[in-house]
C-alpha cells in the first residue's frame, strides 16, 4: 500500500507526521515543504527572534528526528498540482508522487500591502523574513508597523523594548479590534502608548516610500516599515484540484476535504464549529489548532486505513500573544457580539474579560493573569454551561469554580 504525503511542513504538517509515526512504525510518510528550513516554531519569530542579533531558530523537531523516524522530509520542494482521481501530487520538476492519503497543510501567506510602495513593507512570517528584517531592525532608529493585529502589536512592542522609536498604524479604532474583547484592545492600546509607542488609530496608509509611510494623519518617518495586515489561506492547489473551498479548504469534523482520501489541517482548513444556531465554519490561525487538529487527522488517517471509526475535532481554541511585557491569553472563541463582563480585582496592567453569549460563557480573554486563562480554558473544555451568576457565586474566582465543577 502506498503511503501518506503531507504538503507543508509547518506546525500542522509536522504534527500529523509525528503523530502518525507514533501510531504506525512502518507507514511510509513524505513531507513536502516549500521552505528551505528544517521546520521551526513560528510564534517566537515576532516575539523574540527578529530582535535578537543571533536570529535564533527553534526547531519543531530536532535536526536528526526525521531521519531517525524514517520520515522523508523534502525541503525546497513545493507541490505544483494535485490529481485526486489518480491520487498523485506533482512537484516543480514534474515528478509525480502517488499517495494513499494526502494531507494538505499549506498554511497561510501574509497579505500583501495594497498601497503604492507596498513592496517596501516587510512581513514577519517566515524564518527567511526575519533573516532579512533582523539586521535592518538592529540598524534602524525609527520603525513603522502597519496593522494592529497580534503580529503587528508583537513586533511593535518588541522593537520599542529594544529602544527604537516605533509607530503603530492601525485603520480601526484600537489594536486587536477583531481578535479580543473591545475593553482588552483598548487597554492594550493605552498601555503601548504609555510605554512610548506612537499608536495611531483610524489611520489610513496612502503610500510607502523609502523614507517612511504617508498616511491621512501625516507622514510617519521610518527606516524600516513592517506590515502585519492579516493572512490568507494557501488554497490555490486545492482549488485547482476541484476541492471545495471558502475562506479555507472546507473539511468536515473529521478533517476530510470534499475529495476522497484527502485531508486538510491547520491554518488552511476551514472546519465546522459550534452547535445549533451558533454552528458555523471557521479557520483558525493558532498553534492549538495546528497541534490538536493535526493529532485528530493523524488518528483519522490510521482509522481510514484500518476501516475504523473516525474521531471528530471539537476544539476549545486558545491563543497567546506576548507584546513587550504584556502577556495576552485567550481561551474559547470570543465574539464582538457577545456580552463582555470584566472580573473585578484588576490592576493597571491586568484584566480578565468573560464573553457571554445567550447568558453562557463562550470565551475568556486575559491580560497578565495566567491563572484565569487556564481556569477559563479548563471550564470551557468541560463544555458545560457556565453563567455569570455561577462566576459571581464563586466570588469571581474562576479557579474555584473549576475545582467545584470538576
Amino acid at each position: 500500500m502506498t503511503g501518506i504525503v503531507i504538503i507543508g511542513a509547518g506546525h500542522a504538517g509536522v504534527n500529523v507526521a509525528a503523530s502518525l509515526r507514533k501510531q504506525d512504525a512502518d507507514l511510509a510518510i513524505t513531507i513536502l515543504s516549500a521552505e528551505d528550513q528544517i521546520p521551526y516554531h513560528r510564534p517566537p519569530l515576532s516575539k523574540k527572534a527578529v530582535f535578537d542579533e543571533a536570529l535564533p531558530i527553534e526547531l519543531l523537531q530536532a535536526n536528526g528526528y526525521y531521519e531517525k523516524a524514517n520520515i522523508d522530509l523534502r525541503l525546497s520542494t513545493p507541490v505544483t498540482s494535485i490529481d485526486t482521481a489518480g491520487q498523485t501530487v506533482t512537484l516543480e520538476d514534474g515528478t509525480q508522487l502517488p499517495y494513499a492519503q494526502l494531507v494538505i497543510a499549506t498554511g497561510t501567506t501574509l497579505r500583501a500591502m495594497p498601497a503604492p510602495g507596498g513592496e517596501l513593507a516587510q512581513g514577519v512570517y517566515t524564518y527567511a523574513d526575519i533573516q532579512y528584517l533582523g539586521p535592518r531592525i538592529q540598524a534602524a532608529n525609527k520603525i513603522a508597523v502597519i496593522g494592529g493585529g497580534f503580529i503587528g502589536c508583537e513586533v511593535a512592542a518588541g522593537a520599542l523594548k529594544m529602544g527604537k522609536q516605533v509607530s503603530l498604524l492601525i485603520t480601526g479604532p484600537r489594536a486587536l479590534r477583531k481578535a479580543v474583547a473591545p475593553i482588552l484592545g483598548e487597554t492594550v492600546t493605552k498601555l503601548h502608548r504609555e510605554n512610548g509607542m506612537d499608536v495611531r488609530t483610524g489611520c489610513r496608509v496612502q503610500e510607502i516610500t523609502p523614507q517612511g509611510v504617508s498616511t491621512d494623519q501625516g507622514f510617519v518617518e521610518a527606516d524600516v516599515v513592517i506590515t502585519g495586515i492579516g493572512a490568507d489561506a494557501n488554497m490555490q492547489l486545492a482549488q485547482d484540484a476541484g476541492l471545495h473551498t471558502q475562506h479555507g479548504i472546507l473539511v468536515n469534523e473529521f478533517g476530510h476535504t470534499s475529495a476522497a482520501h484527502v485531508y486538510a489541517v491547520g491554518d488552511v482548513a476551514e472546519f465546522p464549529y459550534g452547535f445549533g444556531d451558533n454552528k458555523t465554519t471557521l479557520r483558525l490561525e493558532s498553534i492549538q489548532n495546528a497541534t490538536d487538529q493535526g493529532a485528530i487527522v493523524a488518528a483519522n488517517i490510521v482509522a481510514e486505513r484500518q476501516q475504523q471509526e473516525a474521531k471528530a475535532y471539537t476544539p476549545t481554541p486558545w491563543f497567546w500573544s506576548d507584546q513587550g511585557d504584556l502577556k495576552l491569553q485567550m481561551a474559547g472563541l470570543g465574539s464582538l457580539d457577545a456580552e463582555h463582563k470584566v472580573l473585578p480585582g484588576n490592576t493597571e496592567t491586568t484584566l480578565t474579560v468573560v464573553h457571554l453569549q445567550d447568558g453562557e460563557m463562550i470565551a475568556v480573554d486575559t491580560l497578565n493573569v495566567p491563572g484565569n486563562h487556564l481556569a477559563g480554558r479548563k471550564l470551557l473544555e468541560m463544555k458545560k454551561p457556565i453563567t455569570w451568576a455561577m462566576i459571581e457565586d464563586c466570588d469571581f474566582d474562576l479557579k474555584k469554580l473549576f475545582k467545584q465543577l470538576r
Partner: protein
Amino acid sequence: MTQVTFTQADGSQVSVEANNGEHLMKLALDNGVEGITGACGGSCMCATCHVTVDSVTGELAGPGEMEAEILDMEVDEPQETSRLCCQVFVSSDIDSINVTVQEG
C-alpha cells in the same frame, strides 16, 4: 556542563550533557525523548512538557507563578515534584538532574 537524564514512559533512559541556559524541553526534543511535545515552544502555555524531578545534585529554582498555575490547573495529577520542563533551565549550580517524563 550538566548531566541531564530523562526516564521515558517505557522505563528507558536518555542521558545528555547540557550547556548553561538551555531548558530541558529543548534538550528533550533535540535528543528525541519520547512523550515531550513542547507544542507552545516553551511559552509556558501548553503543559505538553510535563516531567517529575527525581533528583538534583545542586540548586534548582522552583516553578514561577505562571508555571505553578499551569501545574495546578492543567496537569491532571500534579505531584510535588512536577515541573514543566521548558521552564527548567540548566545552570552552573546544577551538576546533574534526573527527570521522568509524565503524560499531559
